[in-house]
């Protein structure tokens, strides 16, 4: 009981204890804010990648694509665990405004907007046709014209607050899309004559996936037309990928394994068929594997930030250690008194660990409360700073970031609080153990007072 009473009194009466408490609170505050923002950004980024990709992709990196995708898509469509399947053409090309000399390199993605919207969140990324993705390639100004959907950053710029200035309706814009058709063996399909396919499409909508590279690179075309442009519409039709969405409740890895098994059997069944060699370069990947190059970079950043804040945590341990060293040194007389009335060395350590625990718990509570209040207002604070001082955490005209993440994860919070308390206990343990080992008479010497 005396341990609890003394620990509380040490905390309340000693100003140096407040210093330790404030140090813990500051560290908890900083780590909570940074981890919440960083974790939120990574989570948001992963979600966008997931929504953009679907759950699973059967695809190849080769621009030649692979054949018999229709047969395999049909097989997939008959499976109970699969909700949607969408074949996709993937290639690269050039886009230029009609009659313009200037063209830019883009990624060509040929889709059926209906099936692709079922497998991914494509419909939600559209601005004008989000309610009716089937008409994504029908320009409002003339539905009979061949339409194309542009990654939003190919057409529009954002203002400093990250807002796009949309026109009420898409303006009539003709775009020439040029592709390099390839044979199944990878050679240029029209070598010796006209090596490229060019077709004029009309701007029908924009797609805003929230993924900077996608929104600034991708041009969506109707599946069949993209297939023709890329030279994949021969006797044996080819495509570049099949995007798959699993039914709710289906485990991602298990679903991918099932698709992988199906694909192996499918490849075996097509042995000896025309262009069957292209099937061997096809991989079945979960969305995480498919987008790993993009996600890994972000996760790496998160690891670096976590590492940096682990160093902040170590600094906290050191600060708490120094503070406790000072407190315990000042309290050697108390230790002598306690031992003279029969308190054991273990209980002396226990007293200071109790005290450290209180510093940790109250410091964490203060840091968490401050962090929570700060995060709840972080977007308002940033808006105010931008309005008055032109300061932004991320330039929205450059980064595809909307609001700064402000949702504290209970798991992250629990880890931070446990670490803070553990840091306090670690910081207090050595000095209190050292002090507890002194003979009572050493602590009670006049020179110690």
């Amino acid at each position, binding site marked *: 009981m005396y341990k609890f009473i003394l620990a509380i009194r040490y905390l309340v009466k000693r100003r140096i204890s407040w210093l330790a408490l404030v140090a813990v609170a500051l560290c908890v505050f900083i780590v909570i804010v940074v981890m919440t923002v960083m974790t939120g950004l990574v989570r948001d980024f992963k979600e966008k990648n997931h929504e953009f990709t679907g759950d699973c992709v059967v695809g190849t990196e080769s621009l030649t694509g692979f054949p018999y995708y229709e047969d395999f898509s049909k097989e997939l469509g008959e499976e109970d665990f699969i909700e949607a399947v969408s074949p996709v053409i993937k290639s690269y090309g050039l886009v230029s405004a009609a009659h313009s000399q200037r063209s830019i390199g883009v990624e060509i993605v040929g889709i059926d907007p209906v099936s692709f919207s079922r497998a991914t969140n494509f419909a939600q990324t559209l601005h004008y046709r989000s309610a009716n993705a089937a008409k994504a390639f029908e320009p409002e100004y003339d539905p009979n014209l061949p339409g194309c959907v542009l990654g939003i950053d190919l057409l529009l710029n954002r203002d400093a607050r990250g807002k796009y200035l949309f026109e009420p309706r898409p303006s009539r814009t003709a775009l020439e899309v040029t592709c390099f058709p390839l044979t199944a063996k990878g050679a240029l399909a029209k070598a010796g004559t006209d090596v490229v396919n060019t077709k004029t499409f009309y701007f029908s909508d924009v797609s805003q996936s929230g993924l900077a590279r996608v929104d600034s690179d991708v041009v969506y075309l109707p599946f069949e037309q993209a297939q023709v442009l890329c030279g994949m519409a021969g006797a044996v039709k080819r495509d570049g990928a099949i995007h798959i969405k699993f039914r709710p409740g289906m485990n991602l890895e298990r679903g991918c394994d099932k698709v992988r098994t199906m694909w192996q059997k499918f490849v075996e069944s097509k042995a000896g068929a025309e262009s069957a060699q292209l099937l061997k370069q096809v991989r079945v990947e979960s969305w995480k594997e498919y987008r790993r190059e993009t996600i890994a970079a972000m996760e790496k950043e998160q690891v670096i930030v976590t590492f940096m804040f682990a160093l902040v945590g170590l600094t906290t341990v050191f600060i708490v250690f120094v503070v406790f060293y000072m407190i315990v040194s000042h309290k050697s007389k108390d230790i002598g008194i306690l031992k003279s*009335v029969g308190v054991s060395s273990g209980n002396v350590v226990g007293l200071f660990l109790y005290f450290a625990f209180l510093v940790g718990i109250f410091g964490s509570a203060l840091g968490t409360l401050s962090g929570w209040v700060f995060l709840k207002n972080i977007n308002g604070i940033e808006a105010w700073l931008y309005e008055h001082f032109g300061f932004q955490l991320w330039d929205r005209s450059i980064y595809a970031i909307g609001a700064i993440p402000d949702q504290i994860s209970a798991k992250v919070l629990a880890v931070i609080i446990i670490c803070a308390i553990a840091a306090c206990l670690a910081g207090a343990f050595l000095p209190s153990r050292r002090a507890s080992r002194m003979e009572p008479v050493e602590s009670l010497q006049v020179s110690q007072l």
Partner: protein
Amino acid sequence: MSNNNLILEAEQIYKSYPMGLAKVEVLKGVDLAVRRGEFVAIVGASGSGKSTLLHILGVLDKPDSGVVKFDGQDLSRLGSSQLNKFRNKKVGFVFQFYHLLDELTVLENVFLPVMAGASVIGWLGRSGWAKKRAKELLEQLGLGKRAEHKPYQLSGGERQRAAIARALMNEPELLLADEPTGNLDSVTGNGILEVFERLHRGGQTIVMVTHDERVAKRADRIITLTDGKIA
């Protein structure tokens, strides 16, 4: 002197401290015996080793060699938990500089030994009794109205009386006092000695260290320590 009546015995106590590269021998073979109910004063010049001897008798310090017996039991054979229990139950210490905990009230300081010797549940069971006894002791020592004060709000004499109350809290068989009046003026010091005399009349065994011959004369027996030996 009947052995049955001895509460405390010290045989051939040696103690030295390192001082730089040298070694200072403080106690050089001290023999001592105290009867139950006796009031003994140990006197000697500054540095003669009297406080060191008192600390060894109360197991606040360990001798280099020699044996201290309490009720015939060799204290060097006790384990650390038994030593803690011994300090808690059998002896009460009164120090020259009072040694009260600043964070606790006077009342809390007095019942501290009961709290220290009990588990949380044990304390819940005994707290009522402990508070009552602590208040009674403070009343007896004239500090009834100072119970809720902090030690720094008390005069030197009052602090020493609070320290005596704490030492008596667990009704120890032996009271050890190290220069209990050394930090007090003569009038206040005399008041403390009167408390000791009253306790002694009630049967309390007291061993008191002092450098003041006039203070020592209040005891039954005076033991003089010179150059680490009993003269």
